[in-house]
Structure formats: C-alpha cells, structure tokens
C-alpha cells in the first residue's frame, strides 16, 4: 500500500511517500524550486517521491493532506467574530484567499496533481488528518518505541497549538491540547519579530543569539518577570494563556503592537539588520528561558498523563534544540526521539503515516536493529555520476575523480586539517531543515577563524551565528558532557569542562563582537558563547561515508569531529543538485567542492562570470 503525504500552502511545502508503512522518500519543495520555505503545491517533490517509489498517481492508495482546511476556516471565522471589529485589514486580505482557493482544497489538490502527471481524478482518494495529529504521527511512528508520550508544539494548526498524545502500538490517543490564540510557538515568534528577525524563519537565530545575553543579570530577570506577569500566565501543566492586549497576530498583519512592547520592555522594535545590542541579547535569553520552562512543564505533564519512559517530539518548537537539551537534563523520560523534520514539512510524512496506521488500521512493527525508521533522514534525491559530469560540462569545470572513496576521504581530511572549507555533497539529500553530512559545508572545528570565515565569507550571514559539530557517535563523550545519541542535530549539550577556556575577566560586560573573539575551547568554532554545542552524532550504520570522512580526519588530527553547516548561503535553500553545489562553490570563498567521488578545487576552476547580483535572488531570512 503506497500513500502520498503532502504539506502545502502555508510554509515549507513538502511531499513524502510510504509503502506498507516504510518511509521511501520525502523532500521539501524549496530544494527544487530554490525558493526558501516555498509554500506552493509541491509538484516537484511529489514527482520525485513517485519516481523514487517507482509509482504513478494511479498506484497511490490515498493522497493525504497534513491538516483539516474546514476546521482551520472555522477558527478563522470564530477568531474574526471574537475580535470584531478589530481585524478588518486582515480579513480583507485573508478571505479572498480562502474563497478563491483554500475552501476548495480538494479541487485545488486534484488540479495541482495534474501538473505532476495524468491520473484518474475519480478514483483518487483524499484524506485530511488534523495538523497536530500529523505532527504526532511524524514523531511517534518512525520512533523506535512501542509506547511513548508524544509532545507537539508549534505556532498553530487548526485550533491546537500544542498537544500531548499517547502512542501505543499502532494507535495515537490525544490526551490534551492547548488552543489558539494561546501558543508557545507564536509567543516565541512574537519575540523573533520584536528582535528584528523574520517570523517563521528567524526563530533559530533568536535561539543562537540568546546565549549572548547575561542570563543571571538583573535586566534579564526583569524581562522574565515582565513576560510572566504581563504577557503570559503559565500554569503548572505547561499550558499558557497569552494576554491578547500584547499580541496582534490573531487579527492583524503584525505579531505584536510595537508601541505597547516598547513601553513594556523599554526599547523599540529592532529593525531588520540593525546592530544587535546587549538589551536585544538579554531579551532573547529571557524568552528562551521562559520557553524552556514551558516545554519542561509540558514534558512533565506528558509523563504524568502517559506514565511512559519514552518521549517523542515534533512541531516547530521541537527544533529549539536548546530547550530539547534542557528537557533531557531534567531526566523526565529515559528515551527521546525528535522528528528531524519537526516543522510543517514533516507534516507531509506524518499525515501519510497517520493514514496508514490509523485510517487503514495497519499493524506497526518496530525494527529494533535500527536507531529509528527515518533512515538517517536521508530521504531525498541522490546525484548520479552522469548528473555530476553534466553539471561539470555545463560550466567547463575542472575536477578530479577518485576511484576509491576511502582514498577520497583521506585526501579531503587532509584539506580540512589545513583549514580549507569544503562543500560536501554525497548520497541522498536530507529531509528537514538540518544538513546532516550529505549536503553540508564542513571545516576544522579546532580552527579559531573557522566561525568567522564560514559566517562572513561563505554563508554571508551574521557573525554571531554558531556552528554545530558532527562527531563520531562513539567519541561524543570525549568532547561533550553527553554520551547519548543525537543523529539529527536536535540537542544542545555543554562542551566538556576540561576542554573549555575560562572566560576572561569582565567578560559579561564585553560587547557582542568582543565576546565572539574569546577562544572558548580547543574546538572553538563549534563551542558557542555559553560553552554549549548543537551536537550531531554520526553513526556508521546510517551514514557510512560521512563516518569514514570524520574517521579519516581523526586519524590525521586526533579529533573525531568537524564543523558541519548547511550547504547554502544566507536566504538560499540547501543545495539539491550538483549544479546548485557548483554554483555555491563559485559564488563564495569555499575552497573545495566534493560531489560523490568528484573533487572540484576552487583555484582550478574557470573564472566565474556572474557578479554579486545572484545575492538578489535570495530574500534574506
């Protein structure tokens, strides 16, 4: 039984296909269209998924959409009714969208599928599980657990903004929900907006900025007090009530009333790209601390309601890896699984799995020989030698082809140890927002200059942004105060104390840039300002090539870890094809590109004729 899952029309459109419960393929549309967070119908991703599964649309048992449009429309109407007459401007924009398209989603999906291929419209079955059920299913069914508490937290689905479910065997039971307009995700997004980052994409920047705040200062304590006393009412079970006097997302076109927030926090909203000052960082750490407190309370409630030893998580807030690390430290559960595509893209996979196990009532079997059923999240397209050579010919590119991968790994490890930055494109593309060693830019974690070089000369992004390590799973405990697994880079844990360099005197008073220049450990480029790191453990069984590369680097340097950042520049989706990767090599100050067994040395390439105008292609996130 083949089932196709789709998420679309909001942000991060994606498609996924499963066959008899096994995940065959999944990809985000943005990777094909090169438009970040592309909300359009995922025509290309659907085409790819069908091709990977060797199927046509007529072979598909059901096409499943990741939420219930009519329930969403109900929320829309009740919200306008509840807030009337406020909300007219939003109404004027939203209602035509609904009347033209979204109310007739069945027709819209059928029409869009015709762009994929010809098929029999009359026999196509369409299903619509709830948004948070899709998230829950994406977290629970691929997990290695037969019984688990499931916690999903995001901005909003139909009504639900967070849910606690119990997964047992093939069933998922919803136990508790938090409903719109009260939302942890929207609370975090409101601060993302106020601090000058883009809603729906800048949240992770806020998370990266937070450690620059002085967490134990009077200013931060004051902000936390204001958030808790004025903006939210936090209950013991983790549910929050958001004071709508301070939020306008329900009916407006902005997240918050700027002037009211300015009065509350004592400074105006930061304009996009304006300099970051200490009060921005302090407010960032304040909301991060509050968010952590909320999700920990929710996790405790999930434990209380289910009694399970296992926790599965999904929803955009589950990408807050700092909060995830804190939940783990609380030892509420014994085992954890976080869906790597925790955001809305993962809903495409979740809704397909929900249809298979819940709608069709199929039995679920957990394969305990594997970490989980996500196949390392390497669920996207793979580049063949022919594709690589075609791309190389197109640009008259010079390359060296290695016959043996082991030999290639040794050579690349040598380049890394010499301080080179390498574009690493291997095997199937990752599903989800993280590059996990198949579409990654990699470098030497020991190199003090690496963070600045990567941020300013390769990614063209803010210098404060941290980088994550890819560490051999078996060596994790040598570098970090953590010995468990984190294959999807969704957990933050401290760098080992013995590796850290103490803060210089007066560090807390330093400005953001001065803080950045402090060499924090012997692996400075992946040690964040608070000595934490967003860890990816690399497992031989899920990515042998990447594991071999890091092992070769270890043989050469004694260090079993490297820097790993997504293969893209700021505002660009992660690369998909060899051509995308080659363009990225030539547009940036990257030193080498490795695609499959082909190595492209930047210095040997013909002059790149394109100017800086390519940067205009991408809207800064």
């Amino acid at each position, binding site marked *: 039984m083949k089932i196709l899952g789709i998420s679309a029309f909001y942000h991060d459109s994606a498609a996924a296909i499963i066959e008899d419960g096994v995940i065959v393929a999944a990809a985000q549309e943005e990777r094909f269209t090169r438009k970040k967070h592309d*909300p359009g119908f995922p025509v290309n991703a659907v085409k790819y998924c069908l091709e990977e599964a060797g199927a046509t649309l007529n072979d598909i048992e059901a096409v499943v959409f990741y939420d219930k449009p009519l329930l969403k429309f109900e929320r829309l109407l009740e919200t306008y009714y509840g807030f009337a007459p406020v909300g007219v401007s939003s109404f004027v924009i939203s209602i*035509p969208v609904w009347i033209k398209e979204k109310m007739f989603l069945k027709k819209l999906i059928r029409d869009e599928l015709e762009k994929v291929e010809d098929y029999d419209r009359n026999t196509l079955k369409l299903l619509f599980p709830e948004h948070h059920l899709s998230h829950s299913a994406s977290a629970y069914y691929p997990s290695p657990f037969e019984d688990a508490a499931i916690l999903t937290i995001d901005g909003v689905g139909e009504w639900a903004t967070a849910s606690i479910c119990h997964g047992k065997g093939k069933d998922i039971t919803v136990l508790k929900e938090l409903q*719109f307009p009260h939302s942890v995700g929207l609370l975090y997004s409101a601060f993302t907006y106020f601090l000058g980052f883009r809603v729906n994409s800048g949240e992770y920047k806020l998370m990266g900025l937070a450690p620059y705040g002085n967490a134990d200062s009077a200013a931060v304590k004051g902000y936390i007090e204001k958030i808790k006393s004025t903006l939210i009412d936090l209950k013991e079970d983790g549910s929050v009530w958001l004071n709508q006097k301070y939020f306008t997302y329900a009916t407006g076109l902005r997240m918050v009333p700027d002037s009211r927030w300015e009065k509350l926090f004592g400074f105006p909203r930061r304009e996009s790209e304006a300099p970051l000052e200490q009060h921005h960082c302090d407010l960032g750490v304040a909301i991060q601390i509050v968010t952590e407190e909320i999700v920990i309370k929710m996790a405790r409630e999930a434990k209380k309601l289910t009694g399970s030893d296992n926790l599965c998580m999904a929803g955009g807030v589950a990408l807050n890896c700092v909060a995830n690390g804190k939940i783990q430290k609380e030892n509420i559960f014994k085992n954890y699984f976080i869906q790597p595509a925790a955001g809305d893209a993962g809903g495409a996979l979740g809704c397909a799995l929900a249809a298979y196990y819940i709608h069709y009532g199929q039995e679920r079997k957990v394969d305990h020989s594997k970490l989980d059923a996500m196949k390392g999240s390497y669920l996207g397209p793979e580049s063949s030698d022919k594709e690589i050579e075609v791309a190389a010919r197109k640009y008259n590119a010079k390359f060296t082809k290695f016959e043996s991968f082991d030999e290639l790994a040794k050579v690349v490890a040598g380049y890394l140890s010499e301080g080179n930055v390498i574009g690493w494109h291997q095997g199937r593309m990752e599903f989800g927002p993280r590059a996990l060693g198949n579409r990654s830019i990699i470098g030497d974690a020991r190199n003090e200059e690496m963070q600045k070089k990567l941020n300013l000369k390769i990614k063209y992004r803010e210098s404060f942004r941290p980088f994550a390590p890819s560490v051999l799973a078996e060596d994790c405990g040598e570098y970090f105060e953590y010995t468990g697994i984190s294959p999807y880079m969704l957990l933050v844990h401290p760098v080992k104390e013995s590796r850290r360099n103490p803060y210089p005197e007066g560090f807390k008073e330093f400005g953001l840039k001065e803080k950045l220049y402090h060499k924090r450990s012997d692996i400075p480029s992946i040690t964040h300002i608070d000595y934490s790191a967003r860890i990816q453990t690399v497992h031989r069984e899920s990515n042998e090539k990447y594991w071999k590369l890091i092992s070769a680097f270890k043989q050469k340097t004694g260090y079993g870890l490297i820097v790993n950042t997504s293969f893209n520049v700021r505002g660009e989706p992660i690369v998909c094809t060899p051509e995308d990767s080659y363009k990225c090599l030539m547009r940036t100050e990257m030193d080498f590109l490795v695609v499959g067994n082909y190595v492209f040395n930047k210095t040997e390439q013909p002059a790149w004729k394109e100017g800086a105008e390519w940067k205009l292609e991408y809207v800064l996130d």
Partner: protein
Amino acid sequence: MEFLKDFWLFLKERKKFWLVPMILILVLIGVLLVFGTSGAAAPFIYTLF
C-alpha cells in the same frame, strides 16, 4: 457540490450551525472582495491563513 456536501457534514459533526449566518455574510463580503481585487496575496503571518 462536493464542497457543499463536505461543509454540511463538517457543520453537523462540529455542531456549529450558529456559524451559518455568519459564514453567509462573510462569504458574501468575501466574494465582493474577490471581485474587487486583482489577486489573492497571502500576508506574511501564516497563522490565520
């Protein structure tokens, strides 16, 4: 027709018949807006749309 059937089933399931008059008025205004605008552009906040 399929849409109307789905909508009727939805209202029955959710017991939200009180929404019907509001829906009619809003849809009417909405239709006017559709004809009054050249394109339907979704704003940047996704929550409601």
